[in-house]
């Protein structure tokens, strides 16, 4: 990829005893679309605010183009932000909101304040409004706009300053589902057109997978995994990532040899290597990687406890020896029927044990988990208000 633009080195953020960021190391490349993904209180917004300059890390450095910028105030950083609830200026109309940044004199190369000429301001604002499809709305008060339109104004207001990096803090959180999908495409298009770096904060894994070049999964103030969307999905590093990204059945297993893992006292072929002999591991099996077969032909046998029609497939919950799996299949299996399953070696992903082992991957309370994910996140960004993440995952 292209060259490195921003680096966080051993960044720690703490308020008294409460550690919000725990030794974050991260680099962000130029023109990259990077997403900070995680549940409420994971530290993603704090990370973003450190990059934006609204917070200064308790320890560690933040570098921009190789220069330490810990003490550079927000207004001197080549970074602009799209805020969670837009934070448009209510007393200004659309045009003046977008023009706001341009009207502030900036430090020129000779140290003198440089102002953008009025004509240029006009052209750049109009151009930007065209980019975000808001032409003709210049004179409207921002309070008279819909949520999606306000969102576009916020983006235009940030981008018109031609930042090197655009920070987006849950920008689509307040929009309805349809609008959110449209805006995802739009944002991706804008990012590619403008050729700048986007750092995007969200708790929505689908959004993260759909838009990002790189996804950083965070939890408990730590980075759990950095990778491309495909890496993150296919090769989760631990039970947390596996569970947070998509649906996963996570089962205790033991590595008997390279390519052989034992679950429920039964050996399965897999592709994973390099584990110790008889090392206890977490085994991830994605619901779509399980084939349902006759009970007799199955590698494992269980009882169907619930079936939900999802359109493309059925969400089928199957009880194997007291452990409930989610299986996504196009075959309909009635409740209480006995079935067998087969799993191909590439459908099995083995992870080392971690602090998250045993916390996720059981579908005893499947429906609640969905609800939990739909809760719109509200990170106050103050740090103090960051509740420790309390999910329903453990059930």
């Amino acid at each position, binding site marked *: 990829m292209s060259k490195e633009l921003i680096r966080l080195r051993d960044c720690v953020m703490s308020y008294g005893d409460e550690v919000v960021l725990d030794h974050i190391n991260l680099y962000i490349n130029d023109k990259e679309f990077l997403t900070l993904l995680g549940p409420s209180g994971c530290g993603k917004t704090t990370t973003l605010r450190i990059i*934006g*300059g*609204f917070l200064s890390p308790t320890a560690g450095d933040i570098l921009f183009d190789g220069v330490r910028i810990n003490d550079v*105030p*927000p*207004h001197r950083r080549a*970074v*602009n*932000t799209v*805020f*969670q*609830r837009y*934070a*448009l*200026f*209510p*007393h200004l109309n659309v045009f003046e909101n977008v023009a*706001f*940044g341009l*009207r*502030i004199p*900036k430090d020129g190369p000779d140290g003198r304040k440089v102002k953008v000429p*009025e004509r240029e301001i006009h052209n750049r604002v109009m151009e930007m409004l065209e980019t975000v499809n808001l032409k003709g709305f210049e004179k*409207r*008060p921002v*309070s*008279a706009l819909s949520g999606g339109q306000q969102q576009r104004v916020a983006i235009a*207001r*940030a981008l018109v*300053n031609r930042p090197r990096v655009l920070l987006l803090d849950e920008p689509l959180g307040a929009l309805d589902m349809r609008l959110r999908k449209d805006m995802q495409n739009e944002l991706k298009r804008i990012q590619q057109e403008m050729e700048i770096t986007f750092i995007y904060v969200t708790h929505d894994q689908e959004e993260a997978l759909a838009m990002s070049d790189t996804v950083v999964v965070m939890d408990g103030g730590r980075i759990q995994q950095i990778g491309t969307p495909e890496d993150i999905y296919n090769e989760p590093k631990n039970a947390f990532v596996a569970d947070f990204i998509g649906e996963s059945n996570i089962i205790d297993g033991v590595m008997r040899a390279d390519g052989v893992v034992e679950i429920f006292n039964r050996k399965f072929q897999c592709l994973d290597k390099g584990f110790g002999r008889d090392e206890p591991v977490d085994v991830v099996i994605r619901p779509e990687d399980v084939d349902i077969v006759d009970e007799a032909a199955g590698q494992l046998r269980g009882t169907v406890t619930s079936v939900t029609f999802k359109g493309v497939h059925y969400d089928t919950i199957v009880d194997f020896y007291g452990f409930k799996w989610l299986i996504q299949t196009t075959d309909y299996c009635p409740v209480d029927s006995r079935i067998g399953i087969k799993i191909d070696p590439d459908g099995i992903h083995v992870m080392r044990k971690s602090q998250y082992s045993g916390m996720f991957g059981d579908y005893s309370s499947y429906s609640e988990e969905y609800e939990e994910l739909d809760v719109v996140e509200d990170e106050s*960004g103050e740090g*103090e208000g960051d509740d420790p993440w309390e999910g329903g995952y453990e059930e």
Partner: protein
Amino acid sequence: MKKQSRLGGRLFIGLTFLFLYLPIFLLIVFSFNAGDSSAVWKGFSLDWYKALFQNRLIMESLYTTLLVSLLATAIATVAGTFAAIGLYSLSRRKRDALLVVNDIPMMNADIVTGVSLCLFFVAFFQGWGAFAQWFNGVQSAIELPTRLTLGFGTMLLAHISFNIPYVILNVAPKLRQMDKNLVDAAQDLGCTWMQAFWKVILPEIKPGIVSGALIAFTMSIDDFVISYFTAGSSTSTLAMRIYSMTKKRITPEVNAVSTLLFLSVLLLLALNSAREARQERRAARQEIREPSFFEKLSMRLSSPAWKWIRRGGLAAMACAFVAVVALLTGAAWSQPVVNVCSWGEYIDEELITQFEAETGIRVNYQTAESNEALYSLLKSGGADYDVIVPSDYMISQLLEEGMLEELDYSRIPNFEKIDPRFRNLPYDPENKYTVPYSWGTLGLIYNASMVEEEPDSWGALYDDQYAGGVLLINNSRDALAAALLHLGYSVNTTDEGEIREAFSLVADASRRGVFQGKVMDQVFQKMEGGNAAIATYYAGDYLSMLDNQADGVDLRYVIPEEGANWFVDAMCVLKDAPHYDSAMKWINFIASTDANLANMYYIGYASPNTEALERYPDYYREREEGEELDPELYEIMAAPPEVLERCEMYTVLPPATRALYNELWIQLGT
């Protein structure tokens, strides 16, 4: 049934509002009364308003009120706004706790705030005095003033301090409503914090700031109690001035100034609620609308092209504000001043104007309520008067305590005109400290239409046939003096037995219900209105009652056979008076024959000036356009020598006797 209850409800509401507004309505109506009665309508006139604007004491206090309110509002608005912003950067728990703390001063009784501020200032001044003395001792480059007193500055500080909570209270909700990210957004777009404040925070919280400022201004204009305790002796706000004007009787002039005060406060409140209503309406309908003319104008003005005009306008406004303040205060400071403390209605105010015109010295004229009030004011160290006009016995006391400065009689040539009768009196045997201002007697005032035979003895005060009709003077010295005289003792006796005997005379009468009440200034209304038959009071005040007596009332004045008290009020200068030279000029001016004539005519008390006493009947005829002065009245005003013979002047009583007086007086109850 239902209809009836609705009618009852309306009646109830009607009565409630009547109860609330009828007094104010009456006040407004009577401010337009042609006569000087506050009970009888004599036709419409604007005379009292005219008189108001010619009354220099009122205009001066109006100016003080406006200045203190404007300054306090401006400073409190800035301080309160930033304090509120500071509060909002704290955590919610701390902020909520502090907002509760912020509410306390507003709920607190004004009197507590006033007294505590006064205490605080006085304590600070004492500390400062010690510091300044030490500082002036160790170096000579800078001379710090060692004596600070309560005054405009302390009152301003007090107003600022009680205004700030109101500003915070009004700004805080606007900050709460404001999206916290707005400031971050502005900084993100290149603003420094200060730029963000001007461009984003200020427009957002402006409505709160404006209403906070309006309320602070209203509170300042309205305040009496806190000003009273912190203004010291030489500054008066309008409310304080009105209060001192009502001491004797509520004149239509007071009605007029109260009406104006009421209307201006009403206007401010109406302005504020109109603004709030407009904002609510605007918030209620979010739809796009055609901007009003003013909004278009302000949009134009806020466009960058107009920036210089805008900045110029702001700068011009700031300059104008500073200039006005500088002019007002500068005018007050650059001029030589003399601080005078006298009694209410005790000078023809024309004289002040005349003196100022002649000498260029500004007269800061204040009034005290009584000798005792003046004394405690002086003792508290809160006064910075030059000239005071205490009565004889108080002069003795002040002299005993070394509080008076010797006068430079070479600069008071008019002292020569003081009648020998009024020189070298017991309170100042060598006449080194005083120049007499006026003199008079304490006698019996009675309503001839309410008493059968004319009383010629102090005994009338304790006579059961007047039960419920006698007003006891609410001043232990005067009340016991009458009793002592009646018993044939000296008014200055220190014999405990005699004093106790006199006291039981009063106490017994009180038990028998002879007295209607203990009064000082209410004596005017009671006697003028025919609500009481007999009272003890001063001759000069009798004359002014005579001018105001209601129909059917026939007030007379008599010096009883047993004799009476006579008194002299004299001008003195306090030790360390800040303006000694001006004080000498003032005293000489007031001692002149012309000034004495004017004062005699205005206040009804006799002058100690020989020429003035001789010329007064002619002067009276001139002023009254030919009407002759009633010789009997003139004798009451200026008692002839043979009457004065029978009268005794108070001397200062020894502390033990004073304590006895106090103890007995408290026993008497209210």
